[in-house]
């Protein structure tokens, strides 16, 4: 491996591959459960699943790889030109990406449990109608894994891109093919060996980590914009001189500078939490406001989810009533 090891990046890729592995194995299990009498059909459906996975993987690698390549070259230019304002904008974009993705994935936990039910339904319908020639049902088992793997893969790429901005990875390399296999294997083993509850907790923990990183990125973006403004007033490289705008400064420590090469620990805190040894009213307020927005968003998501579920259960109840009526 030519690149520096980053715990957040490792974490992200591990999580994405584990999720993909879970989905694939669940699909395989369902198919096995449902198709008990037709061996040839079973083999074909299993092939569908694997081909779907493969196509999804390839597409995600292409798109994701291109994204990371562009991102990396843009970021490299940013760091070389040392324009604080670009660094700030990139950090902000990364923050938004990670936050949106994390909250979406949080929500999708809910969806993932749902689609298992829906898949079961689809299989049942297909069985009852005795029409496996139904196109969507037939190819559902190819499309579903493909879309899932594609989505997981893209998420992983985007997270890695965003997180590596926060890590100031100047020379990170795209994780190589053999490493993907390695991660997929780990994901599979974890799924097989662990309980689903443990996995659920693992996903929640990784979401928490990602949000912490994103919060730090938001503070760092604000810091970059402030340093740019101060540098323009003072002229020359204010950041290099360790100078900062004294108006609005909240703390300025003699220690804990994450930019110092010997301060490895503080650099780690900087990448995970956005720690800086100089903080202003702007960066502190920004950090707290970020969390406020996330909290409100999650609460809103919960309320919306509860309402949807209430409406759905009423609908199902009505359906059941209708079915009962027709059956009677």
């Amino acid at each position: 491996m030519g690149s520096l090891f980053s715990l957040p990046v490792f974490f992200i890729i591990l999580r994405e591959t584990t999720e993909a592995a879970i989905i694939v194995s669940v699909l395989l299990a369902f198919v096995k459960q449902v198709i008990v009498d037709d061996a040839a059909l079973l083999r074909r459906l299993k092939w569908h699943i694997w081909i779907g996975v493969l196509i999804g993987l390839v597409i995600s690698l292409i798109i994701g790889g291109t994204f990371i390549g562009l991102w990396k070259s843009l970021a490299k230019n940013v760091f070389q030109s040392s324009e604080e304002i670009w660094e700030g904008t990139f950090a902000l974009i990364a923050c938004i990406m990670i936050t949106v993705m994390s909250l979406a994935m949080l929500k999708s936990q809910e969806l993932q449990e749902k689609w298992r039910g829906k898949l079961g339904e689809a299989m049942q319908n297909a069985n009852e109608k005795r029409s496996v020639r139904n196109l969507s049902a037939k190819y559902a088992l190819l499309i579903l894994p493909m879309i899932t793997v594609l989505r997981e893969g893209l998420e992983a790429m985007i997270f890695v891109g965003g997180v590596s901005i926060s890590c100031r990875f100047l020379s990170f390399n795209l994780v190589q093919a053999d490493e993907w296999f390695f991660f997929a294997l780990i994901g599979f083993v974890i799924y097989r060996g662990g309980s689903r509850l443990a996995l659920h907790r693992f996903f929640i923990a990784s979401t928490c980590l990602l949000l912490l990183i994103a919060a730090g990125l938001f503070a760092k973006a604000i810091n970059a914009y402030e340093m740019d403004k101060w540098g323009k007033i003072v002229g020359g490289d204010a950041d290099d001189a360790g100078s900062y705008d004294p108006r609005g400064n909240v703390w300025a420590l003699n220690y804990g500078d994450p930019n110092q090469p010997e301060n490895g620990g503080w650099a780690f805190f900087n990448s995970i939490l956005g720690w800086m040894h100089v903080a202003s009213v702007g960066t502190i307020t920004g950090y707290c406001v970020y969390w406020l927005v996330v909290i409100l968003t999650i609460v809103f998501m919960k309320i919306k989810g509860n309402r949807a579920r209430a409406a759905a259960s009423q609908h199902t109840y009505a359906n059941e009533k209708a079915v009962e009526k027709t059956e009677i």
Partner: protein
Amino acid sequence: MLIPPVKTLALLGLATAVANAAVVTYNWNITYVNTNPDGLMDRRVIGINGQFPPPAINVTLHDTLVINVMNQISEPTTLHAHGLFQTANNQMDGPSMVTQCPIPPGANFTYTIPIEQYGTYWIHGHNKGHYVDGLRAPLIIHNPAETYHYDEEYTLAFADWYHDEHSVLLDEYLSIFNPTGAEPVPKSALINQMLNTQFSFAPGKVYRLRIINMSALAMFHIHIDGHDMDIIEVDGVDVQRTTVKTFPISAAQRYSVLVTAKNTTTHNFLIHGDMDPEMFDTVPGTLQMNITGKIIYDAASPLAPEELIDWGEFDDAALLTPVVPMATTPADSQISLTASFQVMDDYINKATFNDITYVAPKVPTLYTAISMGNLSSDPQVYGTYAHPLVLKHNSWVEIIINNNDAGNHPFHLHGHLFQIVGRGDGVYDGSTPYTYFNTSNPLRRDTVLVPSLTNVAIRFQANNPGVWLFHCHIEWHLQAGLATTIIEAPEAMSGVLTVDRTHLEHCTDLGLPYSGNAAGNQGLDLTGQNVGPNLLPGKFTPKGIVALFFTVLSAVVGLATVIWYAQDDELVPSEEGKETK
């Protein structure tokens, strides 16, 4: 501007005075003048009697120099005769709030100075940056029996020049928007505060050139096309004749050189003063770094081609030896002063000696010393920020100056010559014995350059009761606080010094007390003293702790919300363990 040979003038002057111990009087009205010294910008300057540049002062050894000052500018001001001992005459030394209250606008002050030494000196304003605005002039003290023989002499005072008034530039320099402490860069250089200096050489004659640096900031490299120079004087001390092609001169230093004129008049030659760019924050392309004066052998002759010269290394202490030997005496006390610059807790980049930045007290330090009786030997009465160093009468004192800054600083001690007894690298921490020069006759001078990140050891005897300022002579740095006050022999002061009533009245006119401690109080009660900024704490302050608390709180609540969201019954898988194979 043609300089007439000074020997002629001096003889004329002496002819009107008694041969020994003449009283030489100058009547100086300090006035504003509007002029354009460098031809680039009209501006207001400070001149004397409506004239600019101020005239040089010429006196002879054993004279008494009397300067009747009338302050006709709008700010209080003072005059300091740089390099003069002022033995038993500390109250006439001049630095504002050190030995006197500054002279209020419209008021008079008479400086009466016994001339007990000879050589090349200068006189300049010592309140705020008045000397940078032009209040400076050479002060030449002639010796009827000069050590060296020469036919004629000329005075060439080099200086950097600014277009804005010092107070304007000072506001930009000492500002939160200048965290690196970049000094304002001069706009040009001048000789004798004007352009087009020229003087004549006659073939075969020997000339003494008195070279002075009156700058706010710049160091000059001096060289003459086609001629070598023999250094014969350093800051008023005659030295063994030493030939050089070029030498550097820092702010406030003086050198005299002998130059032997050529035997032919075929060419005229230039004398160069090249400003050293090292201390300039930036060097704009439009800045003319060099000033030249013309040496005229024959008005009709062409100018000789300019020579490119390598400035090389120059160590004054290693190269020059005083004519009158003075051996070193072991020091009774050693003081270590470490100079550095940093942003202080007022967010302005200031200079410190041992982490203290100089702030003038409410009472001139000398007046404190002579009014505090027995307490005058207690450093506390002088105030923390005057950075007082109390010395015992007639003790030998060694000061090790550590320059812990990226800049080169010329340090000046009032009231004394000091011996340069050693130079070293870095900061001397006292863990090993100091390595002194191996000489029984070290160089003596009153302004020594301490290059960046090196140290210098100087030694002098505390035999001149009085309050003497010790400071960097880069004017910006003095304003930034790179100074300490030496309280020399306070126990002997009242027997030796008398302060004129009118001086004390000037304090009252300015609303300042003229006795008591640094706060104007009795005893050791220093409440109300002028305080300066301190070093930044570099730790969490209460404000910081509150901020940290809120960031941690918001993160914790945020993460708790995430966990809460995911605790939904429908989302949490049941505790079944492995479900499928």
